[in-house]
C-alpha cells in the first residue's frame, strides 16, 4: 500500500477555503487478466466539463509512453511538475493497485470526477477507462471500466 500526502497544486489554490479539512481516501484499481505487458495508468481529477484539474497517481515510470494516456496527457500537458513524486511501477495484468491519498474535503460532492486512463504496449489505449463522480455517497461502490479495469472504487 502506498501512502502519499497529496498536494493538488491547482485544485488547492483555487478551491481551498481558510480551514479546509483533509480526509484519507483509498483508491483501489483491479485489472483484468488481459494477458499483455504491465499497464500504464493515470488517475486524475476533472471538473464536470471533463477539464483536467490535477494528477492523483501515475503508474508506469517511462515518460515516453505517457502520451498514450491521452486524456491525462492532454490535461497535464505532460508537465513533470504535475506528476513529480506521484509515480510508481506499471501494474501487471490481473493485479490490483491501491493508493491512499489525503484529499481536501471540498473536492467531494462538488462536481469533480476521478478518471483513469490506461494503456498497454501493443494493445489499445483507453482514455477515461473509468470516469466516476467524486461523492460522499459514491464511496465504497465499485464500478467496472470499459478497458483494462475490472473494478474501481474509492473508500474513506
Amino acid at each position, binding site marked *: 500500500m502506498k501512502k502519499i500526502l497529496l498536494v493538488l497544486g491547482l485544485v488547492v489554490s483555487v478551491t481551498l477555503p481558510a480551514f479546509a479539512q483533509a480526509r484519507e481516501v483509498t483508491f483501489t484499481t483491479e485489472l483484468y487478466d488481459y*494477458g*499483455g505487458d504491465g499497464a500504464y495508468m493515470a488517475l486524475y481529477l476533472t471538473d464536470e466539463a*471533463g477539464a483536467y484539474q490535477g494528477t492523483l497517481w501515475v503508474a508506469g515510470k517511462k*515518460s*515516453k509512453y*505517457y*502520451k498514450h494516456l*491521452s*486524456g491525462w*496527457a*492532454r490535461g497535464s*500537458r*505532460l508537465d513533470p511538475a504535475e506528476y513529480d513524486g506521484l509515480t510508481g511501477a506499471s501494474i501487471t495484468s490481473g493485479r490490483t493497485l491501491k493508493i491512499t491519498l489525503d484529499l481536501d474535503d471540498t473536492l467531494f460532492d462538488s462536481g469533480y470526477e476521478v478518471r483513469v486512463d490506461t494503456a498497454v504496449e*501493443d*494493445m*489499445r*489505449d*483507453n*482514455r*477515461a477507462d473509468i470516469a466516476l463522480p467524486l461523492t460522499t455517497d459514491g464511496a465504497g461502490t465499485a464500478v467496472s471500466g*470499459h*478497458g483494462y479495469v475490472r473494478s474501481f472504487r474509492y473508500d474513506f
Partner: protein
Amino acid sequence: MMLRKWHGLPGLIAALVLVTLAVTGAILGLAPALDRAGAVVPPAGEVSVAELAGRVVANYPGTEQIVRELSGQVIVYYSQNGQAGADLINPVTGDSLGAYQPSAFFVWIKNLHRSFLLDTPGRMMAGISAALMLVVCLSGLVLLARRCGGWRALMRPMAGTGSKRLHAEIARLAVLGLLLSALTGSFLSAQRFGLLPEVSDLGPGFPAEVSGGQPRPVDRLQALSEVDLNDLRELVFPYPDDPQDVYSLTTSGGSGFVDPATGELLQFQPRSNGSVVQQWIMRLHTGEGLWWLGLILGVAALAVPALSVTGAIVWWQRRRSSSQAVKNAPAAEADVIVLVGSEGGSTWGFARALEQGLTSVGFQVHCAEMNALETTYPEASLLLVLTSTYGDGDAPASARRFMVRLRDFRACNALKYAVLGFGDRQFAHFCRFALEVDAALAGKGLSRIQPVELIDRCSAERFSDWGEGLGTALGAPLSLSHDPMPPRTSRLELAGRVDYGLAVQAPTSILRFRLAGEGQRWQSRFFRSGSNSLPTFEAGDLLGILPPGSEEARFYSLASSSSDGVLEICVRKQPGGLCSGYLHGLQPGECIDAFIRHNPEFRPATGPVPVIMIGAGAGIGPLIGFIRKNTARNPMYLYWGGRSPNSDFLYQPELGHYLEDQRLTGLSTAFSRSEEKAYVQDRLLQDQTALRQMVDTGAQILVCGGRDMAAGVKQVLEEILRPLRLEVDDLRAQGRYLEDVY
C-alpha cells in the same frame, strides 16, 4: 589462446541461456512474415488516411483509434454499447478481417525471449546473454578468419574435418545474422537499464487554440487526405464528449493534431533523427515490417543450438588431448627440450610418444607448449620442435607467442635442434609455420641435428622414420610409434567385382563391398547396433584398408555414398603391390577389414558453375561417384584417359547412361594404346578454348589419378590458363582446383 578462451568459456556458460534466446528468437522471427501475409497492402498513393478513416467510421461508429502496423496490418479499436473491441481491417474496403487478438503464444514467447518470464532480473539476464553473444560472435569471427587464412579467404571452401569444420561452416553462414541480433539486442538492453541514453520523441504539446466548431466527417478533413495510408502509424479520434478535443495523428514522418472542424494540421512535429535511428535499431532487432529480415535472423538464430553442440564437442576434444600424463623433467634440468605447437591438440599425441621414446632411452625430457619457450635451457643439448600450421601459414594456438619470445632466447652449449612439421598438403601453405620456425632457429645460430621434416596428415609411418633418423643421430635406438587415431575397422564383404584391362597389362577392378552380415537382417538397416557399423560417407571419401600382416592402411577413394548401400572402389593392380594384389585376389563373399576416412575437401562445387573433372585409370572412382550424385543436373564434364577402349574403359555403359539423362554434360576420352595414342592432356589441349571460357566463368577443376598424370595435367592447364593471366595455384587458393592424387 586467450582469444580462444574468450570464445569458448563464455560460449559454454551461456550456451543454455543462449539456446533459449535463439530458439524463441527464431520463432519470433516468423511473426513479421505471418503478419505481412495476413495484411492487405494497397500500393502507395491509392488510399489516403481520410478515405480509410471514412470507411472505418461507416462500419464502426464508435471508432477510437486506427493503428497501422509496420507489417501493413490495419487495426481499428472501437467501442460499441460500452464494450471495447478491436478488429483487423481491410484498408481498401474498410471491412473487418476478423477480431484482432494478439497471439497469446507469441506474447508468451516474446516474454520468454526478453525476460525468461522473470521480469527485471530476467531482462538483465537476457541483456547479459546478448552481450556474451556479441563477444562470442566477434571472437569467433576473428578465429574463423584466422582459420581460413585471412579475411579475404572467408568465403572460400573450407578445409578440415569433423566437428571443427561443421562448427566453422555453420558459423560462417550464421555469423552476420547473429552479430546483428546480438548487437541490437545488447544495445536495447543497455538502454533499458539506463547504460545508454534513449532517444524518444515526447511529441508536440496539445494545441492551445482549437476552433471548437461543428466537426466535419472524418473523410473530409484536409490534413488527413494528404497522408497516404502507408505512412500512417496511428490516428486517435477525439473523445466523443469533448468538443475541444482533436485528432492525434502519428505518421512515419512525425506527429501532430488535426482540428475536427477545420481539418487543419496543428502543432506538427517532425520525427527527430535520434528517434528514427532508435526505431531502426528496434526494427533491425525484431524484423518488424521487414519480414525477410525476420526470417533471415530467425534462421541464423537456429544455428545457435547447432553451434553450441559442435562447439562443446570441439572444446571437449581439445581438453582431452592436451591433458598430459607423462612425467616431465624441469626445464632447467632437462637435456632434451620438446616444444609443441598445436591448434586442435593432435600434435600433442606425437609429442608424448617422442617424450616417452626419449625417456625410455635415458634422456631427461622437458615437454612444453611453444609459447612457454624459456630464455635459456642450461642443461639442454637438444631442442625438438613439433608444430602444426594454422590456416594459411599462421602459428597454431600454442605457438602464437613463440616468435616473439625467441628474440630473447639465448642458446647454451652447442644446442642442436630439429623441427618436425605437421600439416595437410591440401592447404596452400603446407607446414609453412614449421618452415619459418626452422629458419628462425637457424637464424639464432643453432645447428640442425637433422633437416626439417614435414608430415602429411599425421602419417604414423613418416613419424616413425623420423624417429629412427633422430635415434641414429643421437646414437641411441629410438623407436617411436604413435598412431594418432587408431582406426576402428569394420568387416566388409566383397559383394561383387568387375574386371577390366587385363589385355593391356593394366588389370583394374571395380570392387563393391557391403558390411559383412548385412542384407539378411532387416533390423540392421535401422539399428546399427554392435561392433560392425560404418559412419556415413560420400563419394570422394577414403576407404582405409589393412591388408593382412600389415599395420599400415592403404587408402582408396570411394565411388559410392552411404545412401547407395555399398562401398565401391576402383583398384588398379600395382606390380608387387601388397594391398592391391590382396584386393585383386578377393572372391565374392570374402571379407576385409576397413575403415572410413573422411575427405571433405575433395568434393565438386554445388550450383550452376561448371565442374571439370579430369582422371586417368582407376582415378575415375570418385569422379563417377560425383556424377551419379549430380541429380541437380549441374554442368559436369569428364576427361578420362585409359589404355584401350576394348579393354579398360571403366564404367563405359554407365557413363553413356549419364550422358543421356544429363547428369554428365560432356565426356572426352583418350586411349594411349589404341590407334589414336592419345593422353588426357591431349584432349584438354584440343578443348582449350572452351576450357578457358569455363574457367573464366568460375568453373572448378577436380583431378584424380596418379602423381605423374596429375603433374602432366597441371602443366597443360598452366599453358591453357596463361591467356587468362591465371595460374593453377590461383585456382587452388580459391578452392577451384582440387587434387586427389596417389
